[in-house]
């Protein structure tokens, strides 16, 4: 079974500070990581491979330092990585088109796995967009997946209901955080990953003449100022002070 996992490098949103003079989020110098749910997607790919054999390729559209992140995914169990650089100007249309073209170039695939949404932009757009571009079926929000030889069934978390769907291959599946617990690679695996290939493909080899459909006009920071008064000592005392403050703030009813 050939599986492709789309994994994105993101900034860790919990480390973002807002520059108070310009009111912009400071995005430089923030630690980067693989978007959390993409690790769940890879974990699911590894489980499927354990059952059916085959090959797992991870594809990332990202800056050059994403190579380090791809190594982490190779250590977890992916067989090969593909890194495509971001063009100067990009948007969701461009990223999804590059991913879809890279997938076509990889050629043979049964399952494409994506995260339900990325942790920085949280759109949930790329997965279904790729499915639309490739004109293959899609199963979103999978909280469990059962891959069989010629079809896959998945239970989808649709909030107020759970929907069990089935599809033949090829299919694009987006997974939720709850689907599994991503494994931590062993030291041996980390060392072994150094020998696995990471292919760097340039944009022109995939597609020419891409123009963004969306322009970001502005990014406004949203700061959150809180009083941060913490009561730590005697519990009765703390409770009393908290209730007094809440009453003073007029929020008790």
């Amino acid at each position, binding site marked *: 079974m050939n599986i492709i996992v789309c994994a994105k490098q993101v900034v860790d*949103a*919990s480390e*973002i500070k*807002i520059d108070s003079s310009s009111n*912009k989020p400071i995005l430089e110098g923030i630690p980067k990581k693989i978007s959390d749910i993409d690790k769940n997607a890879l974990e699911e790919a590894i489980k499927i491979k354990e059952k059916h054999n085959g090959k797992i390729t991870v594809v990332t559209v990202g800056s050059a330092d994403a190579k380090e992140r791809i190594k982490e995914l190779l250590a977890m169990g992916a067989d090969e990585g593909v890194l495509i650089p971001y063009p100067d100007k990009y948007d*969701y*249309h461009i990223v999804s*088109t590059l991913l879809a073209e890279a997938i076509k170039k990889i050629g043979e695939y049964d399952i494409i796995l994506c995260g339900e*949404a990325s*942790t920085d*932009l*949280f*759109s*949930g*757009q790329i997965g*279904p*967009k*790729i*499915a*639309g*571009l490739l004109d293959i*079926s*899609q199963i*979103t929000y999978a909280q469990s997946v059962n891959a069989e030889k010629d079809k896959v069934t998945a239970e989808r*978390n649709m*909030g*107020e*209901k*759970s*929907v*069990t*769907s*089935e*599809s*033949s291959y090829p299919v694009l599946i987006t997974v*939720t955080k709850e689907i599994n617990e991503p494994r931590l690679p062993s030291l041996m695996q980390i060392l072994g990953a150094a020998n696995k290939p990471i292919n760097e493909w340039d944009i022109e080899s995939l597609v020419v003449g891409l*123009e963004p*459909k*969306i*322009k*970001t*006009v502005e*990014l*406004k*920071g*949203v700061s959150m100022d809180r009083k*941060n*008064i*913490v*009561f*730590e000592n005697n*519990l*009765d005392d*703390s409770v*009393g002070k908290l*209730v007094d403050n*809440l009453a003073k*703030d007029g929020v*008790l*009813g």
Partner: protein
Amino acid sequence: MVLVYSDNKKLTFELLSKGSELAKDLGKKSTALIIGKNDDLLANEYISYGADNVFVAESDIDSFKAEEYAEILEKVINETGKDTILIGSNKNGKELASRLAGKLNAGCIVDCTNIYLKDNKITTERVVYSGNAISVEQFNSKPRILTISSKVFEPLKKDANRKGEIVKKKIETGKSSSKILKIKEAVTEDVNVEDADIIVSCGRGFKNKGDIKLANELADVLKGRTIGCSRPIAADLKWMSEDHWIGLSGHKVKPKLYIATGISGQIQHIAGMRDSGVIVAINKDPDALIFKSADYGIVGDLYEVLPKLTSAIKDKMS
């Protein structure tokens, strides 16, 4: 110019309010889309909520599948020449909009929290980086696809005198290679955290499902009471139904008082409650992140703090 679609009627009303305003400002018309069986009652309701026209795409498809619905939308867009597509941002709507954007090579902006004209261009705002920033975006091309969650826009007042045309057309689609095997309705408790005045919210600091009653008891002495929870309580443990789930992937709330108990304060949780009036945190770990996002905090074991807090508030209020 504007085509409005959601499988949720109330959400369609909300989208129609914004859609008809945009259409009017640009001197164009808004059309509500119904997919499935012809339904004159619903069509007329859409008109009374602001649609200039209604397009009924008649189809025998019995349940939602993004592949088939995206094909229907593509055909309706070709048929009507609409260039601005507003889709309700529930789970079906989001995957539909994104797939459609792929099929049409179109720009798509999901979860808009505001839409307006700037320099006569449709301009959107949406929350990014877990609530740390708002991205202001514009389209370079058409068609434009936008998704909008519930409660972002107020519906217009219903006006039964509004007139509009209803167009019906049978739309054929190919069969998707995916199939729905089973639909299981989850139990919901019909709570509405988004409208709640006061929320007591529970996290993994609770050891058992039964212990949630401690939070219930506190909520009971507070007026406007509702219980909320973090993602793991709803999604992993399933101790509470998803209508309690607060955060980036759950409900966005802004009560005047939010009490987070046994919640660590990861940014994805904060994203759902950062607009609350006063935020209180109860956590046994003095270094818990939640204290950084709180006005008041008590460092302590929730099993001790909650009963004391409940009785102290009861005393104060009587």
